[in-house]
């Protein structure tokens, strides 16, 4: 397409991209090194401090949190893109370029999943259950019908294949189309987006059960999938807003993006915040009030040993503060403040993932933060961001201005 030739070179992104890549490789490299050192120390040293500082098991735990964080941004972008293909609306045109670039990272995210396969025994207790224990317990027998390595791998393959398959075809079919509602989009984009959303809904439900919920294999909650998916849509939205404002030159941004669009973006983010809060509260209230031992233990683990303060922080920063801020028109009309709120949301969602995942590894232990946890986020986040920027250069960042009546066939 000729549109590709007109794309600006964006030299101002070079530094960000290079920094992201270097930080990413460094962070991930350090984590891998830490893991390998831990493996080498195994048996060689009995010193607890060293053992706690390094370890392959810790590497996988940190990697999982970081991976699910970036996965949420990638898949969230894809979901929002499909929703926009189906419903239209000005908000989506503003984000089209960013969301497309985010969706382009899904194949990379599939690649980044593969290292986790080496750590299944470290991550999931059901991988370590002894055969005789399973024989004795009817509960474990039932659990292993679903939670067993071959079935787990098969399912993971289906999820990843569905994500890559749907997203790649969607991007190919919409490649080179103008980022503006001037012409109706090809019908087949809508025809692909509905089954795509359906596939996402089902795969993310079972992926969240497999990859996160089964860290505590005896616990269950039927709202888990929707809650996890809402978090992903929220991450996708928050990242897209922050990236749009952070990467577009302010002059271009204010020339193209209207106040109404910014307001719609803020309102959508608010809607996702409310949805996340609604589901989180529903899950908490129902489990707290029923007080059944097999259910309430999940909250018990997360409301002791310092973890309860993280929980309070989530209420304040994952709900109260963004809720109040996003009610204000002034916040939404100013791209800078909107992007700041979006960044805050992205950050607190990482905390949410940490709070949901990590206490499962260390039942009833105090709050902990390993040096590999931030390092893995920097590592995976950096690599992902560099790849994202590479993809973003290949499409228009901003939509075409609404007021011009030019012919887009050019």
């Amino acid at each position, binding site marked *: 397409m000729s549109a590709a030739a007109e794309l600006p070179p964006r030299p101002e992104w070079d530094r960000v991209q290079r920094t992201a890549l270097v930080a990413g490789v460094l962070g991930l490299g350090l984590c891998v090194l830490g893991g390998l050192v831990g493996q080498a120390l195994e048996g060689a040293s009995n010193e607890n401090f060293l053992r706690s500082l390094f370890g392959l098991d810790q590497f996988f735990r940190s990697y999982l949190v970081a991976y699910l964080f970036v996965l949420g941004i990638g898949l969230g972008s894809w979901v929002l893109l499909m929703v*926009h*293909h*189906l*419903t*239209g*609306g*000005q908000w989506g045109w503003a984000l089209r370029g960013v969301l497309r670039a985010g969706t382009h990272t899904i194949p990379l995210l599939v690649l980044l999943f593969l290292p986790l396969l080496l750590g299944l025994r470290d991550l999931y207790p059901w991988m370590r259950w002894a055969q005789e224990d399973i024989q004795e317990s*009817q*509960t*474990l027998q*039932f*659990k292993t*019908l*679903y939670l067993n390595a071959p079935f787990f791998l098969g399912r993971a393959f289906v999820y990843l294949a569905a994500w890559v398959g749907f997203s790649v075809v969607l991007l190919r079919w919409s490649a080179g189309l103008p980022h503006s*509602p001037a012409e*109706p*989009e090809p*019908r087949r984009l*809508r025809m692909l987006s*509905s089954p795509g959303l*359906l596939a996402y*809904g089902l795969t993310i*439900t079972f992926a969240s*059960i497999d990859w996160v919920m089964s860290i505590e294999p*005896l616990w*269950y*909650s*039927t*709202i*888990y*999938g*929707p809650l996890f998916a809402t978090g992903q849509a929220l991450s996708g939205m928050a990242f897209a807003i922050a990236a749009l404002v952070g990467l577009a030159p302010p002059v271009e941004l204010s020339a193209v993006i*209207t106040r*109404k669009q910014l307001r*719609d973006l803020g309102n959508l983010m608010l809607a996702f915040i409310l949805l996340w809060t*609604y*589901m989180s509260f*529903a*899950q908490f*209230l*129902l*489990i707290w*009030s*029923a007080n*059944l031992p*097999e259910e309430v233990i999940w909250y018990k683990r997360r409301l002791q040993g310092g973890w309860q303060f993280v929980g309070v922080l989530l209420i304040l920063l994952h709900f109260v503060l963004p809720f109040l801020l996003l009610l204000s*028109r002034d916040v939404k009309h100013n791209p800078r403040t909107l992007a700041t709120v979006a960044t805050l949301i992205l950050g607190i969602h990482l905390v949410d993932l940490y709070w949901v995942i990590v206490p499962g590894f260390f039942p009833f232990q105090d709050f902990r933060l390993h040096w590999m946890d931030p390092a893995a986020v920097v590592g995976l986040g950096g690599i992902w961001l560099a790849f994202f920027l590479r993809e973003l250069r290949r499409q228009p960042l901003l939509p075409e201005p*609404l*007021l011009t009546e030019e012919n887009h066939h050019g």
Partner: protein
Amino acid sequence: MEDRPQHSDEPSKGDGPAHAESAPVIAPGYTIGSITDQISSIVLTRPTSRGWWIGFGIAFLIVMVLHAAIAYLLVKGVGIWGINVPVAWGFAIVNFVWWIGIGHAGTLISAILLLLHQEWRTSINRFAEAMTLFAVACAGLFPLLHMGRPWFFYWLIPYPNTMGLWPQFRSPLVWDVFAVATYFTVSLLFWYVGLIPDLATLRDRSQSRVGRVIYGILAMGWRGSARHWHRYEVAYLLMAGLATPLVVSVHTVVSFDFAIAIVPGWHSTIFPPYFVAGAIFSGFAMVLTLAIPIRAIYGLEGFITLRHLENMAKILLVTGLCVAYGYLMEAFMAFYSASKYEQFLALNRAFGPYAPFYWALLVCNVLTPQVLWFRRWRQNVGILFIVAIVVNIGMWLERFVIVMSLHRDYMPSAWGMYSPTVWDWATFIGTLGLFVALLFLFIRFLPVISIFEMRTLVPEAQVREEHGATEAGSVTGELRTT
């Protein structure tokens, strides 16, 4: 099809569907005058048809059945119903949840779609809101009657009294009192405020003195001045903002009625969103069930176009998929949980004594709406009508299946069966009659479609809007005008 694209020539309001080829929200050729004439004529000038009298007469007779059923209940007590222990909540709660679910579409259409700038809502919101009120009224009867001594209903309300009675605030049944009462009040106000300019139109056009006086009182001195309109629109949008959380909160609380109890099949964390989706699903099914005959009988095809029916069909499809997801999660988690009670419940639902209801509900709510994937069928009014009715039945069956979770819980010695008596049926059918009778009265005495909002959709109004920024069309504008 494309001669009057109401949306696409206004880029700043581009929240409509992305596809420009869809049908217009109002048929071409209408003017402000002809809209007013056609809608108000149903109330003012057209003679009351024989069909109306027959329909209302039948509905009225059924209301008499309801009266008889309630009178007998008050004399004899709830023993005349089929309820027992373990199934202490029989038809009463099934019907309560079913009716209150139906009552969700009205406020969703009027408040949420208004805030989302969905202009197509304009011609269906009025009777959807009326439907909401009547459905909530029917719903409210059941818990009252189920109390056994309904005249003591006020004991549910926290008020200082000499007996030292205080409601149990941990019980979602008490939350229900607040949720439903608030919902009914706000829906009623929203509906009435939306009616005021149209009541003034009826007052001005009415030929009879009685009509002028009654509509005049109801119109509260509306003169249509610029200041009136300005305040009106601010108030209406604020009420829309207030009503929006209620759409979610009422059915969330209803779902807590079940989920707070630790009965297998009831205590499930997905219940709140799944119930809300189910409520919207059944509400839109009922709107379609009513809209299709009303537009045919009163010749309103120009106002309630295929576009409206198709959009509602899409909402039906989406919410139907959400409900199907709920069924899937319930069944999957029953097995994943490895809890023998949950597993037994899932098997008992599918193969136990009430299994036919379960399978019928899956056919009605999961299988049937799938035809709506295809545009050709979404635009076929006959098929839509059938799907809507099937979904209504399916949602009733869903509540029946959920309530029947009670019949076999933890202890086999406490198991039992439930079957409705003739009085259960009489009460249920009686409320159907009440609902239909109220609708007949509504159609006869009030404008079924919002006249003044329809006027904003005609091309004349659109032109004006381009000059004066927030004049005619700004009902669909901003939440806060500050």
